[in-house]
């Protein structure tokens, strides 16, 4: 496969960009692999990439029921940050942040990672105490961040409303300068291309319908494109993890909920950073194309429909308009939903499943895009070696039995 560079760009310009090679192959599934990854979202593709790159496992297939990146990976608001409260999560998300910082070069694919900073707003005294505590914890973990005043926020974001007379006045914020956004599709495509380069088979339109076992060990999967055998199966299916767990015969502490986002018509540059608010539950950034990218809260009920409720949109848009009155006349272009897999402690579940050779990576809920490279990196280690990496060991499923929950609810600013 050709390397993307200024020279390949010039060469392809000669033929009017008609002859670019496909970025990854679309092979027929083989009968047997050394490992199968179920789910072609960013996390599944990153897992396959790092298994090939770091662990030398190249006879791998990624099985995706639809198209790669068509799940939450291609539906999220792309916020990346690592300012989580507890050590376990801070270390995991910061590992991911470090990978983001070199990802475009590593993949030879521009994932448009833009470290434009992330503000997490506080609207009450308790919000501000929590923010101070979180920023201090972050700094002890070597994660950048500081607390800013309403005046400092206003200086950086001229259109924000810091009027103290409104219902939820902005009393301050945490700011993580290394946070930002990345292009979600490019992340899926870049990892797919990178994995394919090592020989990983990426198989789309291939739905796993059952997990085959013999004597308590995984032997393969049944799919819409036939039986595929493998002694190792890594499941990375986000909102569908309870469905896959049921196929394998165990239960998950997970509820799947719809989470929605919307984008406006493209407008001239107006917001060059990311603003998130837990209390009023809205978050917004502006894409390079110019549209405002706005995320809502989850719908309260369990749901597998990839759409969100009207009351959810109304709630979010009113919050955004209170933060940015100038946006009140911007028209919204598109709205969609994803299915997020929420856990009781708002932390992912990464590790060995109760069946030998079966591994699960899920529970990222409303905030796993930022973790894509780090999640793939630790899970690749876990699937390849059969043992968790130190970074994902605390996130094992059995923490719900031992009671060692990692309570990031609220602690992590907003949940995205």
């Amino acid at each position, binding site marked *: 496969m050709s390397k993307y560079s200024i020279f390949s760009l010039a060469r392809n310009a000669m033929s009017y960009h008609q002859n670019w090679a496909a970025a990854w192959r679309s092979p027929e599934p083989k009968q047997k692999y050394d490992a199968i990854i179920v789910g072609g979202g960013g996390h599944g593709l990153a897992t396959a990439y790092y298994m090939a790159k770091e662990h030398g496992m190249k006879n791998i297939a990624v099985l995706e029921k639809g198209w790669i990146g068509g799940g939450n990976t291609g539906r999220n608001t792309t916020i990346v940050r690592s300012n989580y409260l507890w050590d376990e999560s801070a270390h995991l998300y910061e590992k991911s942040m470090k990978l983001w910082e070199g990802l475009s070069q590593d993949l030879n694919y521009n994932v448009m990672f833009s470290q434009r900073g992330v503000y997490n707003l506080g609207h009450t005294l308790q919000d501000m105490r929590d923010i101070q505590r979180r920023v201090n914890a972050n700094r002890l973990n070597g994660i950048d961040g500081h607390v800013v005043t309403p005046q400092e926020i206003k200086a950086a974001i001229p259109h924000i409303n810091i009027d103290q007379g409104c219902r939820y006045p902005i009393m301050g914020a945490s700011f993580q300068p290394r946070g930002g956004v990345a292009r979600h599709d490019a992340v899926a495509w870049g990892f797919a291309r990178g994995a394919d380069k090592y020989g990983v088979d990426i198989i789309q339109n291939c739905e796993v319908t059952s997990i085959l076992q013999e004597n308590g060990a995984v032997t393969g999967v049944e799919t819409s494109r036939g039986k595929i055998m493998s002694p190792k199966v890594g499941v990375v299916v986000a909102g569908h993890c*309870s469905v896959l767990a049921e196929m394998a015969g165990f239960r998950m502490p997970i509820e799947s909920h719809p989470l929605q986002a919307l984008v406006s018509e493209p407008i001239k540059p107006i917001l060059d950073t990311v603003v998130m608010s837990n209390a009023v539950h809205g978050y917004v950034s502006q894409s390079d194309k110019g549209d405002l990218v706005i995320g809502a809260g989850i719908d*309260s009920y*369990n749901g597998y*429909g990839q759409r969100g409720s009207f009351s959810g949109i109304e709630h979010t848009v009113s919050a955004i308009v209170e933060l940015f009155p100038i946006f009140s006349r911007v028209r919204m272009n598109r709205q969609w939903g994803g299915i997020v897999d929420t856990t009781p402690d708002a932390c992912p579940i990464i590790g060995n499943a109760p069946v030998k050779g079966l591994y699960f990576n899920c529970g990222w809920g409303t905030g796993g895009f930022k973790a894509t490279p780090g999640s793939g990196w630790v899970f690749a280690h876990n699937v390849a070696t059969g043992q968790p990496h130190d970074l994902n060991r605390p996130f094992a499923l059995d923490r719900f*039995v031992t009671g060692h929950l990692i309570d990031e609810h609220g602690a992590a600013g907003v949940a995205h």
Partner: protein
Amino acid sequence: MLLIECPWCGKRDESEFSYAGEAHIARPLETGKLSDAEWADYLFMRKNPKGAHREQWLHAAGCRRYFNAERDTVSYQIKSTYKIGETPSEDRA
């Protein structure tokens, strides 16, 4: 927007209700004898099905009573609602 039928008040807008998760989870009786794994199953593990789901709702901005609903988690269609302690329609047949 969902139109939800409270068994006491009748059909009301979704925004009057709050969701209270999977229904028919009985608290174990002899809690002193439960293992950690049994506690985990009761406290945390959920069916989370793709399809028919029996769940609890609270008519928060109405009569403030809990009730159960059978709802499809893909189409979101509510098949029936019934009072706590009652059996869902399909079990009655």
